[in-house]
């Protein structure tokens, strides 16, 4: 019974599951990107209270498991607020909140590596804080951060497998279903593993390519002269 004939029948389902994995990773990464940037700005340039709030947020989302967070938001929010939401919405929001906590760390590191004298120089040109963030801090942060940030891409993509706990039919959930129906767990999970593996290393190559394309000579190196 080692034939892979099940694969042709089930491949549309696997593909659908894979697309769901992509969709949820994309949502988590982009939402986490925006929120993570704000958290990092708050931690690096904010006052005492802002810093404390940011750190409490980060400690909560980095200190507890994603699975618990998913269950807590998926079941908890409707119970607390009466607002019913779909598993996909709850899952996407939770992934964003979670990823933001991790991305914040990477952004913060990159922001702190930008020499302070540039901020003073921008100030002397009459730029407002908002303009300095927009034109000086973020463009450099986002370029410097890419290699470190790719870790979060990998880890979040893998984490989307946790979404099966709230019933989202992403790749791993799809595999579980197919495995139960075909009684071929070894084959099904192997194929699943291969899909994750290929996608993650392929995407890493793309990220590396983008990094090389938008790299600016000398940016992110500590030497100033």
């Amino acid at each position: 019974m080692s034939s892979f004939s099940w694969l042709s029948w089930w491949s549309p389902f696997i593909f659908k599951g894979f697309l769901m994995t992509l969709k949820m990773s994309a949502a988590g990464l982009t939402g986490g990107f925006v929120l993570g940037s704000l958290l990092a700005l708050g931690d690096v340039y904010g006052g005492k209270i802002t810093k404390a709030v940011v750190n409490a947020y980060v400690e909560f989302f980095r200190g507890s498991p994603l699975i618990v967070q998913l269950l807590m938001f998926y079941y908890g929010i409707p119970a607390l607020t009466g607002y019913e939401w779909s598993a996909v919405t709850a899952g996407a929001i939770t992934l964003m909140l979670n990823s933001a906590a991790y991305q914040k760390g990477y952004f913060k590191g990159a922001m702190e590596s930008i020499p302070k004298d540039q901020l003073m120089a921008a100030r002397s040109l009459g730029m407002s804080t908002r303009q300095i963030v927009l034109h000086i801090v973020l463009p450099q942060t986002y370029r410097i951060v890419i290699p470190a940030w790719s870790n979060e891409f990998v880890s979040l993509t893998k984490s989307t497998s946790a979404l099966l706990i709230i019933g989202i039919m992403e790749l791993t959930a799809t595999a579980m279903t197919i495995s139960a129906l075909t009684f071929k767990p070894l084959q099904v999970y192997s194929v699943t593993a291969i899909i994750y593996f290929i996608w993650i290393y392929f995407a890493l190559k793309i990220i590396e390519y983008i990094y090389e394309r938008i790299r600016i000579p000398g940016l992110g190196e500590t030497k100033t002269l």
Partner: protein
Amino acid sequence: MCASEIVLEGKKIGKKYGKLEVLRGISIRIKRGETKVIIGPSGSGKSTLLRILGLLEPPTKGTVIFKGMDVYASNKLNLNKIRSKIGFVFQQPSLFRHLTALDNVKLGLKVVRKMRDDEAKRKALEALRLVHMEEWIDHYPAQLSGGQQQRVAIARALAMDPDVLLMDEPTASLDIELTWEVIEVMEELAKKGITMLVVTHEIPFAKEVANEICFMSEGMIHECDIPENLLRNPKTPRAKAFLKRLIGEFGGR
């Protein structure tokens, strides 16, 4: 234009960091078209004074007056707007490292002055020509020498058409052989009549172009005079001692 118009004035400026008193009541005036040089030992508060005059940090006492208006009198004043009219060149070139030389100079024009791109480019090229960097406009800071970076930094400040240019030891971070190219540019600017306040140890520069040199030490200005007087016959003992050491180093007369 009135020849003796005072562009920038520091009035009884005091600055404390915690308990440390860095500036003790300094008054200084910069007239339009003049080049004023501040000399003095390190740790005397020169950089702090310049940053306060450039509105990059507030004084703890006294105030700054820019073209007749007290900038700290009302908090309705837009400090950023005034900062954009006061050029500043730092010890370190401090270029924005993700931008080319040209884009470094253009940024303030576009973002602060809201100029159109082509207009900003024309203006930026003009400023870069003044510092003889027109052939390097597409280079990133990391691809330029320290002296070239500092010249771009000067162009970046000049492009904003500042009423006054403050320079904080602009050659201090450079190797000796890169110093002259920056000094040369500074001399040209002074001769063009650009209003400047320069902190520097380059005595030949001060001698050549300064209208007045002020000696500063321990948070106070001890004396100001025309170069011949201050460099040859300083009145205060501190200035005497300082110049003896400094000019001794240069082997000057």
